C-alpha cells in the first residue's frame, strides 16, 4: 500500500493509530475507538481489519503478540511520527480558524 494514502488520515485511521499507542489486540480496537470518542466514531470490523493490514504493510504498526488468531499490535516510531504530523496538521487548521474568527 502506497504511503501517500496516509498523507492525510481519516478519522478512523487516526483513532485506530491512537488506540495503538500502547499494545492492543486488533479486535479490541473497535471497542476502544468507540469508548475514546464516546460513540462519535465507529470503525466497522471490515474497515478495521483492512486498515490494520495496510498499517502493518506500511510499517506504521507492528505485531507484538499472537495468541491463536488474537493478534496484538503497537505503533512504531514511524507510526508515531505519522500521528504527530496529523496532529500538527489539525492544530494548524485550528490555529488558522481561530486567527480568522478571533474576537
Amino acid at each position, binding site marked *: 500500500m502506497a504511503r501517500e494514502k496516509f498523507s492525510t488520515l481519516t478519522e478512523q485511521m487516526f483513532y485506530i493509530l491512537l488506540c495503538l499507542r500502547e499494545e492492543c489486540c486488533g479486535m479490541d480496537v473497535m471497542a476502544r475507538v468507540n469508548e475514546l470518542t464516546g460513540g462519535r466514531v465507529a470503525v466497522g*470490523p471490515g474497515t478495521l481489519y483492512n486498515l490494520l493490514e495496510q498499517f502493518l504493510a506500511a510499517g506504521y504498526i507492528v505485531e507484538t503478540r499472537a495468541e491463536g488468531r488474537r493478534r496484538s499490535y503497537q505503533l512504531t516510531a514511524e507510526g508515531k511520527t505519522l500521528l504527530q504530523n496529523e496532529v500538527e496538521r489539525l492544530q494548524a487548521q485550528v490555529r488558522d480558524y481561530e486567527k480568522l474568527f478571533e474576537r
Partner: protein
Amino acid sequence: MLKTKYEYNFYSFYDHTGMEQHFEKMAAQGWLIEKLGYFWRYRRIGPQALRFSVVYYSEASEFDPTKPSEGELTFYDFCAQAGWNKAASRAQMNVFYNEDANAVPIETDAALQVETLHQSMKKEQLIAWFLMLALALWIFFDMCKSFIRDFAAALSRLSALSAILDSVLLFLLCALELGGYYLWRRRAKREAELGRFLPTRSHPVLQMLALLVLVMGCAVVLYSDKEGRGTYLAILTGIVLLDALIWGIKGLLKRRGGSAELNRGITLVSVLILSFIFSFTYLRSVRNGQFDQTPENATRYEVTWSNGETSFYYAYDDPLPLYVQDLTKTDYDRYSCELAEESSPLASQVRGAQRMRTGDEDDAPELNYEVTDVKFAPLFDACLDGELKYYQNYTVTFYRTHRPFRNWEYREVDAAPWGADRAWQAFDTESDGWGVSWVLTRGKRIVRIGGSALTGTLSQAQMDTISEKLLDADIK
C-alpha cells in the same frame, strides 16, 4: 416442508447492495442464504428481520482451499466481534448477517470499500468478463464474414441469424456488466471523497431475460442447422464434460487443502491438456466421419484414387425444381441431385445442384442454382448486391486465401428474353468473354444459375424453361 431452496444467481458480483436487500427479503420469508455459486442455496429458518452485509476479502481466490485461511478466519473473528455472523462465502465474496438492526456496519470507510472491491474484482471477475467480451466480438466478426461471403444464404439461415444475435446479446451482457461496474466505481470514488457510500445497482431482471434469450438462441442454432447439429452437440458435450472435469479437479484440490497457486497452476495445466485431448479426439472423429449423418435421399459411395487413398461421398436423389434434362440431352444416369432449403423470417433460399458423381470421368452437363426469396423487402438490395459480388467474395483458403474468380464479374444484360425484371451474366474481364452463370430477379426473388448445362448460346426455349421453373414457380 422443504428445508432447502435453490435460486439462480442473477446478481452481479459487485452488486452488494442488491444482494443484501435480496437476502434480507428472503430472511423475512424464512430463508437464510447458506451457499453461493451459480445457484444460491438457502436453508429454512423462521421468518426473521435480519440485516445483511456482503463484503469482499480481496486476498481470497476462487482457487483457495475449502478451509479458510488464517487471514480469513481472523477477518471472520473481527466481524463476529461486532455481531456479524458469516452466512456464506465464495472466493472473495462473504455474506454476513446481524440480528441487531443498529449494529456498526462492517465497512465504515467508503474509499476503502471501493478499493477492496476493486482488488477483488481484478482477481477473477474482470478477467472473465473481458474474456467473454472478446469471445462475443470474435463470434460476431466471424459471423459477419459469413454474411459478407454470401449475404442471401446467411440471411436465410436461422442458425446464422441466431448466432449473430447471440453474439450481440452476449456483447451487451458483458458491456452491461463491465460498464455498470466501472460507472459505479467512478461515482463511488467521487462519493467516497465526501465520505459517502454509493449503493450498487445491477439489473437481475435484464440479465435473466438476456440469459433466457441467449439460451433460446443457442437452442435455435442447435436445432435449425441440421447439418451441423451433430458437430454442435459434440462440441457442447465436450465443453460440458471439460467444465465438469475442471470443476472436479479444482474442487478436489480445494478439499485437499492445496494452495491457491498450486490449484490455479494444476487447473490451468488440466485445462490445456484436457482441451488438447478433447480437440484431438474431436478432430479425429470428424476425420473418420463419425459426426456425419447420412442425409435423407442419399447413398454413400467410396472413391479410390490413383494414390490408393479412399474418400467417401454422398449421391443425392432429391427432387429438383429444374433438371439438366429439362434443358439439354444427356446419357449420363448417375447424377447426384441435391436440394437444400433454408428459411428464416427474413429470407428463404433453395439451393439445387445436379452433378456427376465424384470419380466419374464422363463429360456430362451439370447444373446448380440458388433461388432466394427476400421476405423483408428493405434487405432485397443487399441480397442482390451479395449475389452480384459472388465472384469477388468467393475465396478458397489453402495455406492462404485465394480468389480464384477475381477476374470475373456479373454484367447487366437484357432481361426481356428471360421474362425477368433484371438480368446479369458472368463476364471474364481477363479474356473478355461471357461465362455460363446468370443472376435474374423478379419481384422479391433472386435466382443465380450456372453450370455446364448452360454452355453455348441459350435458346429461347431454354430460357423460358428456367424462367418458368425458377422465376415463376412456387419453390419452398
